[in-house]
C-alpha cells in the first residue's frame, strides 16, 4: 500500500476523460452489462476487477468499440470521450481506435520484425513523413515501453521470437506508438511470470503520466499496486467504484467485501 500512497500524490488532474452513462451490452438475448455508469479520470490508472464473466472485459472493449467486430453484440447508452459520444453514427471506429489504444490478454505481436510491429500503427495513420521520423517514433515507443535496451540490436528480428514478457511490452510499445490518449489493457499480465509482471506493472505506472490507463485484472494485488481508482463488477453490474485504497480497505458494498476477502469469485 505504500507504493499506492506515493502514486496517489502524483495524480495531478481530476479531469474526466471517459464518461459512461447507462451502458447496456447485449450478446444476442443475453444482457452482459447492466446499466453501468462510470467516470474515468485522465492521467489515472483505473482498474476493473471482478469474478470471471462479470463483464469487465466486455465493458473495456466497448471503450474502443472492439465489440463492433462481434456480430451479435449490441451496445446501448452513451460512452463519451472528452465529451464526444463514441457511438455516434458519424464516428469511425478506426479513428477512435487510433485514439484509444489496446493491449490484449495474450501477447499478440504480428509475425513480423520488432521494428515493423511498432511502426505499423504510425505507418497506417501517416504519423511520419520519412524513414528517420519513423525510426524516432519506433525508438521512442520502445523506450517508453521499457524494452528498447533489450531489442535495440535486433530490431529486424521477428517479434514472435521474444519471450512472453518482452512480447507484451512490445505490444504496449505498438499501442503507444500511435500516440493514443487512452490505453486499455485487458489482463495484460495474465500470461506472464512474476518478474515480467513486475516490469509491466512498473511500466503502467509510468504510462500514467501521459495517458488515461484502464486495466482489467484478475489479481487484486495487481489492482492495488498499480491503480488509483478501482471499479468492482459483478454479474454485469458495476457494484462499487472509488479510490483504490478505499475499495480495498473499507468497501461499502457487502459483495465487494466478499470478493476482496475471497469469499466470492
Amino acid at each position, binding site marked *: 500500500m505504500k507504493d499506492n500512497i506515493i502514486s496517489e500524490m502524483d495524480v495531478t488532474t481530476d479531469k474526466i476523460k471517459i464518461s459512461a452513462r447507462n451502458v447496456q451490452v447485449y450478446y444476442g438475448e443475453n444482457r452482459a452489462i447492466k446499466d453501468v455508469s462510470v467516470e474515468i479520470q485522465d492521467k489515472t490508472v483505473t482498474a476493473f476487477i471482478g469474478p470471471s464473466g462479470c463483464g469487465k472485459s466486455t465493458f473495456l472493449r466497448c471503450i474502443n468499440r472492439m465489440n463492433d467486430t462481434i456480430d451479435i453484440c449490441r451496445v446501448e447508452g452513451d460512452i463519451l470521450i472528452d465529451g464526444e459520444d463514441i457511438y455516434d453514427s458519424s464516428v469511425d471506429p478506426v479513428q477512435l481506435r487510433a485514439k484509444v489504444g489496446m*493491449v490484449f490478454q495474450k501477447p499478440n505481436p*504480428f509475425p513480423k520484425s520488432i521494428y515493423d510491429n511498432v511502426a505499423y500503427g504510425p505507418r497506417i495513420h501517416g504519423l511520419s513523413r520519412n524513414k528517420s521520423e519513423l525510426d524516432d517514433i519506433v525508438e521512442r515507443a520502445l523506450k517508453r515501453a521499457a524494452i528498447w535496451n533489450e531489442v535495440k540490436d535486433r530490431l529486424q528480428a521477428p517479434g514472435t521470437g521474444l519471450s512472453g514478457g518482452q512480447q507484451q511490452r512490445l505490444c504496449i510499445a505498438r499501442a503507444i506508438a500511435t500516440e493514443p490518449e487512452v490505453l486499455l489493457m485487458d489482463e495484460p499480465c495474465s500470461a506472464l511470470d512474476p518478474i515480467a509482471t513486475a516490469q509491466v506493472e512498473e511500466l503502467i505506472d509510468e504510462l500514467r503520466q501521459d495517458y488515461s490507463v484502464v486495466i482489467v485484472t484478475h489479481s487484486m494485488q495487481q489492482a492495488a499496486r498499480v491503480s488509483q481508482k478501482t471499479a468492482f463488477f459483478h454479474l454485469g453490474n458495476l457494484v462499487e467504484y472509488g479510490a483504490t485504497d478505499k475499495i480495498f480497505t473499507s468497501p461499502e458494498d457487502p459483495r465487494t467485501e466478499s470478493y476482496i476477502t475471497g469469499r466470492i469469485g
Partner: protein
Amino acid sequence: MTDMSNSTTPQNSLLRQDARTIRRNRAETRFKAYGVAAISVGLLMLVILLVTIIGRGAGAFQQTFLTLDVQLLEAKLDKKGNRDLEDIKKVSTFGYAPLMAAALEKKVAQSDVESDLKPKEMAALLSKDAAAQLRDFVLANPDLIGTSVEFRFLTNSRVDGYMKGRVTRASIANDKSINAEQLDLVDALIKDGALEKRFNLAFITGADASDARPEAAGMGVSMIGSLFMMLVVLALALPIGVAASIYLEEFAPKNWITDIIEVNISNLAAVPSIVFGILGLAVFINYMHLPNSAPLVGGLVLTLMTLPTIIISTRASLKSVPPSIRDAALGVGASKMQSVFHHVLPLAAPGILTGTIIGLAQALGETAPLLLIGMVGFIASNAPDGIASGLMDPNSAMPAQIYEWAKRADPAFYERAWGGIIILLVFLITMNAIAVMLRRRFERRW
C-alpha cells in the same frame, strides 16, 4: 524365503496383469494389426499401379528408327534450282517418297541381305510419316538440297512392335501390314545396325497423329492445350476464389443468405464434373458462341469446377489465422480491410497456394467436362504460334489425349496411352510436391 515373498506380495500385484487388462491389450494389438494390414494393402496396390504404368508406358518413350543415307536430288526437290522456299514447298510428300525408297534399296544392296521384296514392300517398313519428316527437315535446311544426308526415319509401328516384342512372327499370321519376308529384312537391318531403338523426344513434344501412324503421335500439343487451360484457370479461379473467400469469411454478415451460399459452395465441390461440361457447352459455346474445342472454353469450364475447391481451402486457411492477429491490427487502428490485407492474407497465403495447386492438379487430370466441349477427339493441330491461337484454336488436353489413344484400335496407341499417363502423373506429382514444399516452407507456429 517363499513364505516371505508370499506375504509381501500384495493382492493386486502390478507384476501380474488381470484378465481385463489382458483383454484390453489384445484388442489394442488386434487394432494395430488391422491398421498395418490396411496400409500394406494400400501400398501394395500403389506399387502394382506404378509397376504396371511404368512397365507398359515406358516403351512409348522409345521408338525404332532406321538410319539411311538419302540423296536430296535437286532435280526432284528444287527444279528451278534457286532455293526459293516457296518453290520447295510446292513439292509434296509424294515427291520425297521415291528418294526414301531409293535410299532404302541402296542400303539393302550395300548390306549383303538377300531379299526378294519389291521396293514398295521395303518402303512399307518406314512410317507413313517418314516422308513428312524428311520434307520438314528439307524445308528447315534448304541449303542441303543436292547433297547426301544421313537421316533417321521413323519406322512403321509393326516394326517398332517387333523391336519391343509386341509383334512376333506368330502374331503376324493374319496381319496384312507386315509379312515374314519383311521381318527377315528387319532382322538383317538390326544386325547391320541401321535399325535401332532410341529415345523419342517427339513423343513428348509432338502432335497427335492419325490412326495409320501411331509411331508419329506425341503428347506435346495436348500438353500446350493443358497449359493454356491451366493459365485460364489460374488467372480466373485464383483471384475470384480468393476474393470471394475473403468477402465471405471476413466481411459478409452472418445470416441465412450467407449460410445458403456457404452450403451451396460446399455442394458445388461435389457436383460431377460432367455437369460443368454441359453447362460450359450451353453457356460458353451455344450462347456466347466461343469456338468449339478451344482451351479458353476448357479453361472456363475447369475454372467453374476449381472455384469451390479454392474457396473452401482459402476459407479454411483464413479461419486458421488466429483472431488475436485481427484484434491486434484493429487495436492499433487498422481498418478491416487493412487488417485483412496487411496481416491475415499474408499469413493465410501458404494455405491458399496449397489449395490452389491442388485445385489446379485436379483440373489438369479432368477429362469428362472436356468431352462435351469437343476437346476429346482427334485434334490434328500443330503447336500454336501465339497466346491468341493457343487460347482459341482447337486443341486437346493431356487426359483427353490419353483417352483418345486408349480407344483407338492399334495396340501401338495403347502403349502411347500408358506413356501419356506417365507424363500426366509426372506433372501431377510435381505439382503436389510443390504444394507440400510450400506448406512446409511457410508453415508457422503460433
